[in-house]
């Protein structure tokens, strides 16, 4: 037990994590590209045509995994923040910051593809559906976090302030989701129930899972690349970073 603890904390130092991130990134890039390629092939050519929605439905193979990832990443960021505030590990805050743009990107993709899907299905670009509205609010939460971290010059303060905001956000998300759902059921009319009743074909589910895994690998790869540059930027003054820059030059 003692041994394992020491090992874990060894990688919480930015200096030791930097090369590890550098080794992990290419692996996850390859995994991401492969899975997304397979997933896209399956969603366009293997998955059967939906008898009600035609070919247009295929966009959900991007839409649904992107929504999953946008929520999942927010949770992971909050988790890193909790670790950072508890154990005072700088790397945890850097991980949260490295993940934020990816999370925001997935929230945006989810909204964009949702609206692309909505046009042929519902005849309008935007529907105030509970899930879409919640996704929009999630995007706002991401943007708020990134704006706060960017606005604070003192890094230590930025780290901790951002972490507190993420934890506040994660506590609020269920309340927000519940209230939006309640609001939506009271204003029924424009909404169409998307799934739940319709049973999903097995290949469709498999395709969605492959896409989700691909997005997941992409998130890790992107976060690793980003965390590397965050580490370098912050540790620029330290000896190990100077050595590294010297080697490159």
């Amino acid at each position, binding site marked *: 037990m003692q041994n394992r603890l020491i090992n874990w904390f060894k990688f919480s130092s930015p200096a030791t994590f930097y090369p590890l991130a550098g080794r992990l990134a290419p692996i996850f890039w390859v995994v991401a590209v492969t899975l997304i390629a397979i997933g896209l092939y399956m969603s366009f050519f293997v998955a059967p045509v939906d008898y009600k929605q035609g070919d247009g439905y295929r966009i959900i193979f991007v839409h649904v995994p992107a929504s999953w990832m946008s929520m999942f990443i927010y949770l992971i960021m909050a988790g890193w923040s909790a670790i950072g505030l508890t154990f005072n590990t700088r790397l945890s805050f850097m991980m949260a910051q490295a993940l934020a743009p990816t999370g925001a990107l997935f929230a945006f993709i989810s909204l964009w593809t949702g609206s692309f899907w909505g046009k042929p299905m519902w005849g309008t670009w935007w529907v105030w559906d509970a899930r879409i509205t919640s996704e929009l609010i999630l995007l706002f939460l991401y943007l708020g976090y990134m704006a*706060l971290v960017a*606005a604070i010059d003192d890094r230590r*303060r930025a780290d901790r*302030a951002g972490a507190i905001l993420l934890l506040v956000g994660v506590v609020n998300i269920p309340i927000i989701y519940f209230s*939006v759902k309640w609001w939506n059921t009271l204003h029924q009319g424009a909404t169409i129930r998307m799934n739940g009743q319709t049973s999903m074909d097995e290949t469709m589910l498999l395709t969605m899972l492959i896409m989700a895994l691909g997005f997941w690998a992409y998130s890790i790869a992107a976060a690793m690349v980003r965390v590397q540059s965050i580490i370098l930027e912050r540790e620029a003054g330290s000896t190990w970073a100077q050595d590294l820059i010297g080697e490159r030059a």
Partner: protein
Amino acid sequence: MFETLAWIIRRDVTIALRRRTDVFTTLIFFVIVISLFPLGVGPDLDTLRLIAPGVVWVGALLASMLALEQLFLADHRDGTLEQILLAPQPLSLLVIGKVIAHWLITGLPLVIMAPVLGLQYDLSGEALLVMLWSLLLGTPTLSLLGAIAAALTLGLRAGGVLVALLVLPLYIPVLIFGAGAVEATTSGLGGGAHLSLLGAILLLALLGTPLATAAALRVSSE
């Protein structure tokens, strides 16, 4: 301990009463925003009655957000915040005192003013009463949640705009249940359930937000 709480409330209210402009700017902003909608939407009473709950609530949301930046800023600038941080008592308790005072100064006037503005929108007496209740239960939550954002952005250059970005998503549940209560009353469903939920959210906020605000204040004044 609660004596200190009372002192903090007394101090902030006294100061606010000595420089009344801060109180009035929030209130006047609220009145103007609410009065602008009929000019934009048109004077048709049926439409106005329909949008009244949402308009009043969004107005209250914006007005209370506008006042947030000042919550800790004056204390931060003159050094009294440091003394509060160094007080040998739980910081979250003192934060509750600050928030209560802030609500009395900026929230309560809105609550009192809202029914008068509701008359402009031809709301029934019953709806006005429910609106009063919903604001009475909802605006303290806005102050409590807003305090977190005010503490996080303390002393930052982009403070005001940033507060809006951070706090508006968190305000959504209060907006939904607050406006929903009035709307449910006008449509004959009764706003009881909404009001209970607003009360529940207020209790949750009272328990949770002072801790977050206290942590944020310590981080921001480092």
